[in-house]
């Protein structure tokens, strides 16, 4: 049903272009956009740009997960770690991530490492905060029971605290996935000459408006697919949580 609406809107756009209701320079007809989409896929420009953007995005995302989850578990579990990092986190967190781009360019140049850094920076905070919240919401009785069972410190963190907090941690993953795509495109638009962000900006500057819309539509499709993929992982990994909440629902 939802896809049908997209089809209808595309049809309206196409007809509006053909009847002259829409300026075809600013809003090229849909068939021209689709044709450019096929051309840029066939010549390899678009797949290459998407691939490099995703590689940068997922590398930064993975770094953010590694750091955010590790630090989040420690800060959520140990009060002194929380007290230590909380002022710094609250100072840096409200900073809009694009404001870091000049610093990143200064330190890392305009290559992939800068874009990976920006993505990691932006994704880190939601993952850190959700992990801390998730860990702090683990029932104390569960931790005490596990201690009473003679389970060691590392196993408690790995096999009890982390799974118990995982529903909240996954919320951080989902929020950060959207941020990842935004930041990788912004960073590519600001500096460099590769990636889907650069392609969109380059098409606009070259007055290749149909190409620009084709690239934007591709980006939307990538975002949609990534979110669906994470939902699938979520359903698989947190099957117990969904079963439990479905049972508890009135």
């Amino acid at each position, binding site marked *: 049903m939802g896809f049908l609406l997209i089809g209808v809107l595309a049809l309206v756009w196409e007809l509006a272009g053909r009847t002259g209701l829409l300026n075809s320079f600013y809003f090229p007809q849909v068939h021209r956009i689709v044709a450019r989409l096929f051309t840029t896929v066939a010549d390899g420009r678009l797949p290459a740009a998407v691939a490099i953007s995703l590689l940068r995005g997922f590398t930064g995302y993975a770094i953010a997960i590694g750091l955010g989850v590790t630090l989040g578990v420690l800060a959520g579990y140990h009060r002194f770690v929380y007290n230590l990092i909380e002022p710094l986190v609250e100072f840096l967190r409200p900073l809009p991530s694009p404001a870091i781009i000049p610093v990143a360019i200064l330190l890392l140049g305009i290559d992939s490492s800068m874009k990976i850094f920006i993505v990691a920076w932006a994704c880190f905070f939601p993952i850190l905060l959700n992990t801390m919240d998730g860990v702090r919401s683990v029932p104390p009785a569960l931790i005490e029971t596990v201690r*009473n069972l*003679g389970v060691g410190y590392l196993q408690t963190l790995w096999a009890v605290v982390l799974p118990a907090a995982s529903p909240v941690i996954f919320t951080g993953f989902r929020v950060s996935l959207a941020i990842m795509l935004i930041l990788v495109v912004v960073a590519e638009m600001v500096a460099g000459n590769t990636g889907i962000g650069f392609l969109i900006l380059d098409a606009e500057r070259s007055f290749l408006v149909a190409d620009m819309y084709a690239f934007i539509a591709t980006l939307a499709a990538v975002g949609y697919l990534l979110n669906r993929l994470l939902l699938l992982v979520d359903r698989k990994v947190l099957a*117990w949580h969904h079963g*439990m909440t479905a*049972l508890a629902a009135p």
Partner: protein
Amino acid sequence: MTLESPVLAVRGIGMVFNGSDGRNTVLEDLTLEIQEHDFTAIVGGSGCGKTTLLRIMAGLQKPTAGRVLLEGAPLTGPGPLVSLVFQHYASTLLPWKTALDNVTFGLRGNGTDPRALRARALALLDAMGLAGAAGRYPWELSGGMQQRVTLARALIRKPKVLLLDEPFSAVDEATRAGLQDLLLTLHREESCSIVLVSHNLEEVIHLSRRIVILGGSPSRVESLIETSEDLTREVLRSHLTARRQSDA
């Protein structure tokens, strides 16, 4: 260890908490001995420190004074020899693990033969009437079934002392009666001492051989009563009331 030496001894313990309203002394100079294969119940008013006492006996809380001895040696921390079953049992089960995996949790990879471990867990679940529920998740089980899983999880470690903090307070009357019978059977068959904290006087009289009454402010052991045929709810209630009046 001689027959008379206690398996768990609490010697002159005190517990002071530092709260927002200053120092709060909950327990003072409390001494208690749990003999081998004993069934002791602890009763007392709300907030008298029963749960704190159990947590100290389990090694989860370090007392501010005194010490706890397990088989004559100082208890330095929590361990499987003293198992504590919490009042809020539902939040102590791992919801992402099946009943069977909850029972064996933490024991895999400890040098225990996995097949023997699984067999013992299944036997315990069977003894608890949960043979058909081994593969189900805790949230798929009723409150009474969840509580039996926590008992099986405690017993698989073959504890010397099993501490139960109001274990049946959140289940209905019929389930409670079934769990009480189960507990008596387990006490007969398993070689562990049981310490039960409960507000239910009939339950205490029905299950235990010895009743420890905590009272005073801060709390200490006020009375030790051996249960007998003559001990009724009214007699026990009169003990508790007399203590409260003398405290007042």
